[in-house]
């Protein structure tokens, strides 16, 4: 399987990806990890609100809302 790197923000609703890495400070990374967004986890984009609104993802059966500024700093592997 060939995987392509994408930022979370580039994923369309319904798409899945495996979390590869985060771009940001240790504090930012900890914030994501402690809420359950961790490297190696599979995430599904539930919805992306229009007009600069937030992204909602599902990880381990839990939904998490995050702003676009954060979503663009989450790098995921997507099956090409």
């Amino acid at each position, binding site marked *: 399987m060939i995987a392509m790197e994408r930022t979370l923000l580039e994923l369309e609703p319904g798409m899945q990806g495996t979390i590869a890495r985060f771009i940001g400070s240790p504090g930012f990374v900890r914030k994501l990890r402690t809420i*359950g967004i961790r490297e190696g986890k599979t995430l599904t984009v539930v919805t992306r609100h229009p007009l600069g609104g937030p992204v909602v993802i599902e990880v381990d059966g839990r939904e998490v809302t995050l702003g676009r500024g954060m979503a663009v700093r989450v790098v995921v592997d997507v099956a090409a």
Partner: protein
Amino acid sequence: MKTVVLMGNPNVGKSGIFSRLTGTRVITSNYAGTTVDVSRGKLHLPDGPAGVIDAPGTYSLTPTNPAEEVAAAILGEADVVVNVVDATNLERNLYLTLETLERGVPAAVALNLWDEAGHQGIGIDVAGLEALLGVPVVPTVGLSGEGIRELVGRLGEARPSATIRPMSEEERWAAVGRITGAVQTIAHRHHTLADRVSEASIRPVTGGLIAIAVIAAAFLAVRWIGEGLIAFFFEPLFDLYTPIVMRASDLLGPGILHEILIGRLIGGEIDYVESMGLLTTGLYVPFAMILPYIVAFYLVLSILEDTGYLPRLATLADTFFHRLGMHGYGIIPVFLGFGCNVPGALATRVLETKKQRFIAATLMSLAIPCMAQIAMVFGVLGPFGLRYVVMVFATLALVYVAAGLILNRVVPGECPEIFLEIPPYRMPDLRATATKTWMRVRGFVGEAIPYLFLGILLVNLLYSVGFLDLLAAAFAPVMEAWLGLPAGAAVALLVGFLRKDLAVGMLVPLGMSPEQLVIAVTMLTIYFPCVATFVVLFRELGARGMLAAAGVMVTTALLVGGALRVILIGF
């Protein structure tokens, strides 16, 4: 006396466990030096009574906001820690568990939401987890009370973990994965109806429709419960009270003391709204006019909170509130402010930074009329036609957005983005909801009502020495030249500092045109918060923040009032 501290992530049913452990005698107060509410209660252990502290929910002991700082500080007070863990989400919860156990404090783990985990096909090897963590682990269901007795019984076994040693952050993440893998089994499960409802309520279109329905239902419920409480409880109570005050009025006879305690008799009778005495209006307004709606509001809010709907509402509202310098949670102060600005001001705490809290508090004071005021606006302007009522609310909505866009640009500080977990929908626990409502109502009575009393006393004194008339005369030029209003409206604006609904009523005898009334009512909302809100804002924002907010309010009021005058009346 021993201190037991409940630690856990947000949304794990920690407050449910807390109320199961402590019963009803609970005190909620600010943690010293902060604005974070912490609940304290008592528990009977085999070796005597112990204090129980419910720490704010936190994901880790490296705090990222004031509530988490408080949680970390409270851990220092603990003789025993009960770490409440969400059994449906073990992996994420374990990080805090490990951090806590590494501190070497005696601990026990409550595997809460045990029934929900079962429904979701999640199995956890309790004995295995206990062996790996080195502390007692007890499955619990806060909602039904299952496992609470065993949890209390095993608190005596709580001791520092023998297996968990301090480690680095990366090691801790690895340990979380290892422990989860060893004790947890997950059966494959299909999308349930609840999942589909959950997803529908956070998608833009379906979610928006659901949000409108929920908000409408919430407002109707508040109105219905509030009116019911007034009609069937508070009014009858005051009917019993009236003969007593009338007798007191006769005994006192005319004079300054009568003026202050009973107020002015209207047609020989006590008018609870207009008499303005401490024992008449001073008791009636807070208890028979505000409190019923406050009780209703907090009940509905607690239910909304406990079902897990609010994070969804915040997600939907984020697109809008983000542009005003806040994020999705900015809707909470607005929502509460419509009931009463006091809890609205307190609710600005849901936002993380000073800038966000300042914007939220200022905008709410500017443009969100409280329930009592809304009722008066409808009563006064409604007879002239609904379009005048619409004018007022459209102006206020415009002010909210315009002021928000400007404040976002000029106020220095950070605006963190929305970042929240959406908990699954849950049936509210009636016990926990009742306790929460009761604690909030008690907080309101304790915090807001004394200031209201003080305010009425002050206005009465100023009125009786003729100061209010003097002030009205001084402000007459602004009223007449800038706003196109009669000088008497200045007195109403001054009284508005005390009670805005009362002030709206005072505009009626001035015989103004509907256009003038629109201007006066809009001004009344914008220019300044009522005294109770003012005091809370002062505490929340500090002296400098409050001064800045007041500047914004007065400036906006004058600009909007002047603009309305030009548009509605002409030069």
